[in-house]
């Protein structure tokens, strides 16, 4: 296994640990967090808060380095425009997230727990990804 794959394995493991610890893998808590007009559970605000504060501080140091440790260059999105595709796509994603309480990371974690709900959600998510590819004609 090359060094980049090993690095990705480590990063993925820390990511998964964080997801599991934070409570994001429990869809009912996610829906409780999104249910601001009902039984609002603000705890998950600390997940996004903790994660974004960390990246806000540390990404600055990392990107100042000019290049990553194990690769030739950073591969970052370059687009700056806010277009209909971005807003439409993220609106659809949010609706899907708000229906069942699963976004992609926690859904994959559920797959690891052989959650019966993940076994319904994940194939549908993959079909949705394929459908977008077909409809955009690529």
């Amino acid at each position, binding site marked *: 296994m090359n060094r980049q794959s*090993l690095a990705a394995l480590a990063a993925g493991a820390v990511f998964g640990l964080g997801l*599991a*610890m934070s409570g994001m893998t429990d869809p009912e808590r996610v*829906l409780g967090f999104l249910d601001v007009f009902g039984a609002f559970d603000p705890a998950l605000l600390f997940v996004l808060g903790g994660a974004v504060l960390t990246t806000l501080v540390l*990404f600055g140091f990392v990107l100042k380095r000019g290049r990553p440790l194990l690769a030739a260059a950073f591969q970052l*999105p370059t687009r700056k425009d806010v277009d209909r595709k971005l807003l439409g796509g993220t609106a659809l994603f949010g*609706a899907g*997230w708000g229906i069942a309480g699963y976004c992609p990371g926690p859904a994959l974690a559920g797959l690891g727990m052989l959650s019966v*709900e993940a076994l*319904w959600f994940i194939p549908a998510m993959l079909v949705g990804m394929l459908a977008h590819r077909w409809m955009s004609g690529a």
Partner: protein
Amino acid sequence: MDAWILAATGGVLIGLAATLLLWLNGRVAGVSGILGGVLFPRRGDVDWRVMFLIGLIVAAALYLQLVPGAYVPRSDFPRAALVVAGLLVGFGTRMGNGCTSGHGVCGLGRRSGRSLAAVATFMVTAIVTTFLMRHVWSVR
């Protein structure tokens, strides 16, 4: 431990994981984007994605298995709603180039205006949809 301490610690770990992937490999830790690159593979750009996803799934499963009370499985959500949700999440993340991790954790960390617009949009539609599901249609 208090739920909010675990939430904050987990959040910091997620942020550290994203920092690690950016620092070492120069890549954005967006789960839908990483998964998309496995589903639509490009030569020489697949292995690290598979390894990231394996790390995520195994580490989360280990924590949820080993820590008492950590895993609260839900198994009775309506199947049709799960399928519709999955379709929307899959289609929407491809169309909008990201999900909670790519736009939320990484995009906001990069101070990306596109990601800020994305996060504001999906938070609003998620909150509205949850409201409709729970309080108007009573699906839960």
